[in-house]
């Protein structure tokens, strides 16, 4: 078409047509552009999490009691990686798998988002309420209880590790007049009670593990969550560093755990017979006169026969051991060959400093009192106390905060709990939940009106979940501070979302097993997610609302003020220093200054600010030596025969106790092995013909230590790597036993106890005594997040019932070791 042809007859009408087209075209272009622009914004929205500058924040881990120092890598406002603080005296830069999994807890999709209220516990009909309403409900209930004079019916169950926030809660209970502060899962276990009876110690003993030459562990899961896992791992690494003498590590346990596998020697033992083995070893040391004679004669009490003030003759430890525990007898009971017992005794005595640890198997299993006393007496035979490589006392903490001592278990308010609640307060690890249920259900009316649960999940550890929820149902108000749903949150009235420790500030004090005074700063690495609030801040709100006189006792504007006050107290103690580059360097500096205390800070404010970058403060010195007050027993010596316990028995028995009762008491005060009355030993030896021929052994694995970890996929993926087990429970059976019972490896099996029956995946495992089967603890949650709920089985529920007095008389009564099962293909 030629142009003249095209425009030749271009007329006015055509011009309007062109103009119309131009107008529509321009408009269409505008609309299209806008559309494309909007669309491209919508399409190019970066679905990647936002980037930003990188920085590092020092904090203290509270995933367990270990107290490791962490550095969190931040990208903008996001926490993206956990790294160890290489200057931290506990973990020295290492981080355990639980620490590495922390960010999954922080960014967990099932985090509790707002305060919730349910009018009937367990109904699941949660009604969102505001923080103001929540604070009001708790404060009003507290006020009305105080008004009615029933403040002693308030209790706080605290699952948080020792910190300034725990001391604030204790201070609060003191202020309202309640003695019921319950640390969870219970502070007491075999070793700490044994240390109480034999050394007069007030806290669990610490151990100078690193410098020990020989370590005899009676079932302690040293590498799977015991004490401070990263510290234990660091110590283990130093034993194997091939610098100088290599420390020998012997693991005595019924199952080849990871700890046993990594030990220099594994001694398979019948469950619950640790005391007999320890005393068999003691027999070797005493009969061959390999014990530390100067220590035994000067620093111990009750080794030989003695007569008390009342003229009563008491058997000496040596006499009792030589009489009752010859190695052949110990071998019969324990299943450990005589020659092994002889060799262990000789090695233990010949490799000073030699340490005996035990007999609590993990964080929640308490061990037994008699076993722990027997183990502790081995340390006494070689005189390994208060010296490098020995048993230490947790060095006396810093001067107590105004908020009360954080390390001691009982509140010092001068008020005593009711008898039933006292049994809860002195509960042993793992037995707390059942004791709480007993206390609440065994009385006509509940001894508790208000139970505040802080970051604890007692329902999981209950041997009878239904009974436990019945107990909680009897308590009129159960307030639960939690960040993730769990078995207990469902049984609460008021559910208050708390941040994880990565979103809160706190000062963590001391660490289990670690002998030095140490304070680690926990910082809010990210702001609290959702509408969660730290329980300490909520508590201060409650206090403000309660008004006088409670708000006079806790006169703080906010929790940070409490923390700063604490840092002033640390400053005032005039000791210790910030975390430095290495212990050796710190030590050199100290020597340079001629031992004078000369820290890197000159004011309390400077200390507080510096803690934020260094991560914390510690006292790197330890006063080795048998100084005054190490043994706080009546004799001021280590007591093979516990006079503290003797006095308790006398008080219990009354004045006119008979001879039989006293001779039993006599037995209880000396380390002993309590042969079971039920004839379990006989059944074990006879080749298991009984109705329930197998012994159930529960073990803790590091990814689920303290029964926490099932919520995190990272942990579920590494549960039982030795058998490639993940995401589910399993039962370990010796292949011979399994073969006899017709159970294939990897097949389903039924496990039956007198009261329970459940189905579980069976795995053959050579690392197990043939008469023992083993299940890991930590799965089988009835409530919880998407990954923990209903996954696997909770073996705590099938433990043999009975009076939970395992610590009182005979160790073999502990449900942890007396439960028997039978198994058939499922």
């Amino acid at each position, binding site marked *: 078409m030629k142009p003249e042809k095209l425009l030749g007859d*271009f007329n006015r009408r*055509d*011009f*309007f*047509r*062109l*103009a*119309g*087209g*131009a*107008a*529509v*075209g*321009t408009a*269409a*272009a*505008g609309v*299209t*552009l*806008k559309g*494309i*622009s909007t669309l491209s*914004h919508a399409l*190019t929205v*970066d679905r*990647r999490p*936002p*980037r*930003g*500058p*990188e920085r590092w924040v020092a904090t203290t881990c509270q995933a367990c009691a270990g107290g490791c120092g962490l550095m969190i890598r931040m*990208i*903008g406002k996001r926490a993206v990686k956990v790294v160890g603080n290489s200057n931290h005296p506990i973990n020295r830069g290492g981080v355990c798998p639980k620490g590495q999994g922390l960010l999954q807890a922080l960014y967990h999709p099932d985090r509790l988002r707002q305060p919730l209220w349910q009018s009937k516990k367990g109904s699941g009909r949660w009604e969102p309420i505001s923080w103001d309403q929540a604070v009001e409900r708790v404060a009003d209930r507290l006020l009305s209880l105080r008004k009615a004079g029933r403040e002693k019916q308030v209790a706080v169950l605290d699952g948080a590790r020792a910190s300034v926030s725990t001391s604030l809660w204790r201070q609060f209970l003191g202020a309202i007049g309640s003695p019921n502060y319950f640390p969870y899962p219970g502070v007491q276990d075999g070793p700490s009670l044994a240390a109480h009876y034999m050394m007069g110690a007030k806290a669990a003993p610490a151990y100078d593990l690193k410098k020990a030459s020989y370590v005899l562990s009676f079932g302690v899961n040293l590498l799977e969550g015991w004490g401070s896992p990263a510290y234990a791992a660091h110590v283990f690494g130093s034993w194997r560093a091939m610098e100088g003498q290599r420390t020998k590590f012997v693991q005595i346990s019924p199952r080849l755990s990871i700890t046993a596998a990594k030990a220099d020697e594994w001694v398979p033992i019948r469950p619950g017979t640790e005391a007999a083995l320890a005393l068999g070893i003691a027999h070797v040391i005493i009969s061959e006169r390999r014990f530390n004679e100067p220590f035994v004669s000067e620093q111990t009490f009750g080794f030989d026969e003695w007569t008390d003030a009342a003229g009563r003759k008491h058997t000496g430890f040596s006499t009792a051991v030589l009489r009752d525990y010859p190695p052949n007898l110990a071998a019969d009971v324990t299943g450990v060959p005589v020659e092994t017992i002889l060799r262990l005794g000789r090695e233990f005595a010949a490799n000073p400093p030699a340490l005996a640890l035990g007999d609590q198997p993990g964080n929640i299993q308490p061990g037994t009192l008699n076993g722990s006393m027997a183990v502790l007496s081995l340390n006494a035979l070689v005189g390994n106390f208060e010296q490098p490589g020995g048993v230490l006392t947790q060095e006396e903490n810093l001067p107590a905060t105004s908020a009360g001592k954080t390390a001691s278990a009982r509140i010092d308010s001068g008020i005593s709990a009711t008898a039933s609640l006292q049994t809860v307060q002195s509960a042993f690890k793992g037995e707390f939940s059942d004791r709480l249920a007993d206390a609440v259900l065994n009385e006509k009316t509940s001894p508790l009106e208000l139970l505040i649960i802080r970051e604890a999940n007692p329902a999981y550890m209950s041997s009878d979940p239904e009974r436990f929820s019945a107990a909680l149902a009897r308590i009129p108000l159960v307030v639960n501070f939690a960040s993730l749903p769990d078995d207990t949150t469902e049984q609460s009235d008021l559910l208050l979302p708390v941040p994880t420790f990565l979103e809160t500030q706190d000062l963590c004090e001391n660490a289990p097993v670690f002998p030095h005074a140490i304070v680690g700063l926990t910082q809010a690495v990210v702001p609290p997610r959702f509408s969660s609030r730290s329980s300490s801040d909520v508590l201060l709100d409650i206090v403000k609302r309660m008004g006088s006189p409670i708000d006079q006792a806790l006169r703080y504007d906010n929790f940070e003020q409490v923390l700063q006050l604490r840092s002033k107290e640390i400053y005032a103690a005039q000791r210790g220093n910030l975390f430095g580059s290495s212990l050796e360097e710190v030590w050199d500096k100290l020597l340079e200054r001629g031992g004078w205390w000369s820290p890197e800070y000159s004011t309390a404010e400077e200390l507080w600010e510096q803690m934020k970058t260094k991560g914390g403060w510690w006292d790197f010195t330890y006063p080795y030596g048998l100084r005054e007050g190490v043994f706080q027993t009546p004799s001021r010596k280590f007591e093979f025969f516990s006079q503290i316990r003797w006095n308790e028995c006398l008080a219990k028995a009354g004045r006119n106790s008979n001879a039989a009762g006293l001779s039993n008491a006599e037995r209880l005060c000396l380390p002993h092995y309590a042969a079971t009355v039920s004839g379990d030993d006989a059944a074990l030896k006879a080749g298991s013909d009984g109705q329930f021929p197998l012994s159930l052994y529960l073990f803790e694995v590091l990814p689920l230590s303290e029964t926490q970890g099932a919520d995190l996929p990272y942990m579920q993926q590494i549960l039982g790597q030795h058998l490639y087990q993940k995401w589910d429970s399993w039962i370990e059976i010796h292949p011979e036993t399994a073969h006899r019972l017709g159970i294939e490896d990897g097949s389903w099996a039924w496990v039956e106890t007198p009261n329970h029956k459940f189905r579980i995946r069976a795995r053959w495992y050579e690392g197990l005594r043939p008469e023992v089967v083993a299940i890991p603890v930590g799965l089988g949650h009835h409530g919880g997040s998407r990954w923990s709920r209903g996954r696997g089985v909770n073996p705590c529920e099938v433990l043999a019932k009975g009076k939970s007095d395992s610590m009182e008389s005979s160790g073999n009564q502990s449900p942890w070791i007396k439960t028997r099962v039978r198994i058939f293909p499922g």
Partner: protein
Amino acid sequence: MSHHSLNSPGQAGLKSFFRSRYFFLGLVVFFIGGMFTLSRWVVSSGPQPIQFNHSKHKEAGLNCTDCHSGALDQAEAGLPQMSVCLGCHEAPLTQSKEEEKIRTLAAAGNELAWIQVTRLPQDVYFSHRRHARLAHLECSVCHGGIGESIRPPVRPAVTFSMSRCLDCHQKMHAYTNCYGCHR
């Protein structure tokens, strides 16, 4: 066919108006022309929190790294946080409403929700430190004239492409292997 007979003459006229080749010509030419000319106005405003003017800040003597502080020492140059803006704008410097917005947002405790316009695919590892600090490249080598913009940019002033990266890498004898940049 009865519908045809119902068509009014007026309707027929309108029909011929839209069917005319002149209308079509106008539509096409102005649509295409409009796409080019209108783009400056229609797509000028992105959803940035502040109508930010790079040019003004440059005139005031600021360097890129004064606000994009990671450009020399981090992988990520970063977008200025509220605290950086308040460093100068805590008190009013101008009469600008946009400037006032910063303080309003800050008073409400909000951060500046900048939208990052220069983005690389997620499998590319790019480090500002390497290019700006170590290779001493000027920002404009990659970012072009973004510093001259008077409105908040909605897209990079220069299109980023792998061939553009490679051209420069070849010219400067920097590495050209895959894993140098791809993670």
